[in-house]
């Protein structure tokens, strides 16, 4: 049913952990997580994890109404994470769904969260896709920064863009903080914590401060930062300008937030998405040839390429690539 590019026979079977976040709510993260999962499950085993603990929706986008085992069972009833992974009715796609039962889930205790992070990393699945909640809380950011590939979703409007920048800044600081803890550079911890509470000091400023005190640690932090390479998706685009916004935001992040963001694609708005959700019918299944679906497939392919290249991946500034995307994705007006 899906025309996909099958992975080459000799590609090494590694496990990849992806996380989809948005900063702001309603950008379409869950839609993207669900449909990326569906698309990839055509040729790889995929485990979807609903890490939006406060308001889980992943199961709804997959058309699943009844769930037997959920994250509550893992967190409070001592089951292992693998044990609560359920079938979705689609082959090769499993779901670890969130729970609406336990009220404490939105404010998870530290040790429970650590256990969850550990077991997510340990999941035996070629692709694990996390759907992360909205906001810049640690519960969102921490799941984002443990991923091999972080995917940020924005909509072409200023509130979403602003929250995305906020998310990136918060994630960067959190990353630096966790690096400091990992390498036990406690003396630097104050600097980072100060940064969070002050009027946002630029990351460059922070690194310069650190470099003055301790140049080798500054190098270490810069290396960690260099390895943090999230990808950007602009969702619900309706016109050319919206796609260009993706490039602009990428440029701003690269130049001013000291993070190597990579623009992987734009997904057109489609009324049918909402209609499918109301019918509890997964969008990709009922609209396999829409422009929105084509965009999702293209992005899935790009993300796989990036994942496989790992640190060797270098984004190219290819204007011609942009042209191709534009003509494919936009409906003829």
């Amino acid at each position, binding site marked *: 049913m899906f025309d996909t590019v099958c992975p080459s026979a000799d590609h090494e079977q590694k496990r990849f952990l992806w996380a989809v976040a948005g900063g702001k709510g309603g950008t379409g993260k869950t839609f993207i997580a669900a449909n990326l999962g569906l698309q990839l499950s055509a040729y790889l085993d995929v485990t979807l994890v609903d890490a939006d603990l406060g308001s889980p929706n992943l199961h709804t986008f997959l058309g699943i109404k009844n769930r037997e085992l959920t994250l509550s069972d893992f967190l409070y009833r001592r089951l292992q994470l693998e044990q609560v992974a359920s079938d979705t009715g689609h082959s090769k796609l499993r779901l670890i769904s969130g729970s609406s039962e336990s009220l404490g889930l939105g404010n998870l205790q530290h040790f429970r969260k650590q256990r969850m992070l550990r077991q997510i990393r340990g999941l035996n699945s070629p692709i694990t896709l996390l759907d992360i909640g909205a906001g810049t809380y640690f519960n969102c950011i921490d799941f984002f920064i443990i991923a091999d590939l972080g995917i940020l979703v924005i909509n072409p*409007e*200023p509130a979403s*863009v*602003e929250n995305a*920048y*906020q998310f990136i800044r918060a994630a960067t600081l959190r990353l630096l903080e966790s690096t400091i803890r990992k390498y036990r550079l406690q003396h630097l911890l104050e600097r980072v914590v100060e940064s969070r509470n002050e009027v946002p000091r630029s990351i*460059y400023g922070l690194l310069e401060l650190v470099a003055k005190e301790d140049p080798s640690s500054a190098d270490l932090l*810069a290396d960690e*930062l*260099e390895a943090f390479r999230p990808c950007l998706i602009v969702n619900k685009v309706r016109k050319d*300008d919206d796609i*260009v*916004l993706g*490039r*602009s*935001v990428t*440029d*701003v992040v690269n*130049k*001013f*937030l*000291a993070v190597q963001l990579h623009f992987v694609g734009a997904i057109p708005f489609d009324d049918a998405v909402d209609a499918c959700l109301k019918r509890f019918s997964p969008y990709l299944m009922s609209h396999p040839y829409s422009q929105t679906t084509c965009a999702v497939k293209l992005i899935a392919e790009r993300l796989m390429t990036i994942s496989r290249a790992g640190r060797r991946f270098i984004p190219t*500034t290819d*204007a011609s690539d942009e042209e191709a995307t534009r003509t494919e994705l936009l409906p003829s007006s």
Partner: protein
Amino acid sequence: MKKLQELNCYQVLNVEPSGSREDIEKAYLLALATFRPDGFATYSVLSEDEREASLKRVEQAFEVLRDPAKRRMYDQLLGQAESQQVLAGSLVVTSGPPARPEVNETPAGFWRRLGFHLRPRGKHPDGTVSEKAPQLAASSLAEGYVLSRGRYLKTIRLSRGIPLETLAQNTRISINHLRALEEEEYGLLPSGAYLHYMLAAYAKSLKLDPDWILKDFKSNQES
């Protein structure tokens, strides 16, 4: 990871140094879209002033790269800057008979033909050491290379080891005026014809073609 000020013109526009004319134009349009006043791509990251400054930087970068001749000169200097030599030293002109641009020769070609090469800062071959030559940092190249600008003329003068007093004597121009020219304090100079006269005299005494320098200066004044 570099700050905006440290980026060269290509990096500002996110274009490969081997980019074509079309690539550069596309990149410029994209950069305009990013930093335009009514856009929101910089919302919450840059203040209005910062956004304006970034836009200006984009315009400057495009000014350099859109003109093939300027771009060639820029590339040459960039290559030289990256090999760490420009930071250390001055541009040295081989001494020789006065040079004139040939028919149809571009400024870049003229520049190359004069045989610019680099030498680390230190002594001029004849042993004189004059004041420190101004450093041509890679970032200053981003402002657009204009040969007839005062500071570049000063660089050439210093690389030949000619003190300002000697130049003042040879050209019969007041040393204060020459200093103002080199520091580009054009406000301190009587304007118009006298400035042109000064430039021509300065160029002649440095064995640079005065007509060409004047033409270069005039065309840059206009832009």
